[in-house]
């Protein structure tokens, strides 16, 4: 990064749309834009099905939002740890970086644990009580597809971040790689903010 700045100058690197040092970031943004379309289609589809349905349960009453509000908080905190990890490695502080990226991964893993608990509880107790079955009920189908697709992204993010942590410690990855991994992780957080609102609160 410092070599690139020395060659191009900081101002120029910010003005030029495409420079070799920004290709990785651009690639991740293009991927995220495509991924956002997948989520966009699912959310729009969910909205249309819900709008067209004559009876739709109040989500908060079926799902409960205490645990999910905590999960939202977990992902936001995890995102903050990620930016702190990036700031640490940009300062060259390896120990601090390890701590914060470790915490980021832990936050993601805890989120997945909460989601596994939530799904188990819903499938085994809550939904059967209400006579809602995910194979025949649109509310349940859209819920599991949306949160499941997001959960897969979190799983991918936890694995990705773990690989980044290992690669940095083996000296193969630098700050710019961490920044790209961070983009993915914040995107997962951003999508959850939308899902939490659209699927649980509205």
């Amino acid at each position, binding site marked *: 990064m410092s070599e690139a700045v020395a060659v191009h100058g900081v101002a120029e690197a*910010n*003005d*030029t*749309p*495409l420079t070799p040092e*920004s290709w990785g*970031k*651009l690639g991740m*943004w*293009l991927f*995220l*834009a*495509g991924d*956002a*379309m997948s989520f*966009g*289609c699912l*959310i*729009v589809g969910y909205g*249309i099905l819900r*709008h*067209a349905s004559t009876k739709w349960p109040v989500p*908060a009453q079926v799902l409960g*939002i205490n645990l999910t*509000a905590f999960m*939202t*908080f977990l992902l*936001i*905190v995890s*995102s*903050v740890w*990620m*930016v*702190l990890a990036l*700031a640490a490695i*940009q*300062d060259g502080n390896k120990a601090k970086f390890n701590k914060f990226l470790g915490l980021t991964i832990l936050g993601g893993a805890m989120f997945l644990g909460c989601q596994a608990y939530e799904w188990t509880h819903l499938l085994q107790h809550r939904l059967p009580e209400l006579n809602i079955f995910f194979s025949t009920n649109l509310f349940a189908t859209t819920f599991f597809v949306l949160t499941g697709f997001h959960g897969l992204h979190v799983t991918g993010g936890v694995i990705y971040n773990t690989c980044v942590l290992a690669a940095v410690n083996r000296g193969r990855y630098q700050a710019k790689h961490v*920044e790209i991994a*961070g*983009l993915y992780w*914040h*995107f997962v*957080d*951003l999508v959850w*903010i*939308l899902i*939490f*609102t*659209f699927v649980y*609160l*509205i």
Partner: protein
Amino acid sequence: MSSTAHAQNNYIKIFIILSVLTVVEVSITFLGLPKMLLVSLLVIFAVWKAALVALHFMHLKFEKKTLTIVALAPFVLCVFLVLMLMPDIFPH
């Protein structure tokens, strides 16, 4: 990047705003507001939070315009998606 200390303070500030917005979002669902008002408020808060994450955590505010254009493309396409599905949403 040169002012990391300043950026870190900013991160904590954004974190606090995001947490407060989440608490507000959850709280207003218990107020028994009219449906339309509640939905509008929740959408505004959600988009506000998403924008904060994109602008500050994903550094869009400090990046080249190209990346902002890439990031906005899916939202434009989703609007088109909704428009094209209008006949299904409001049949006759």
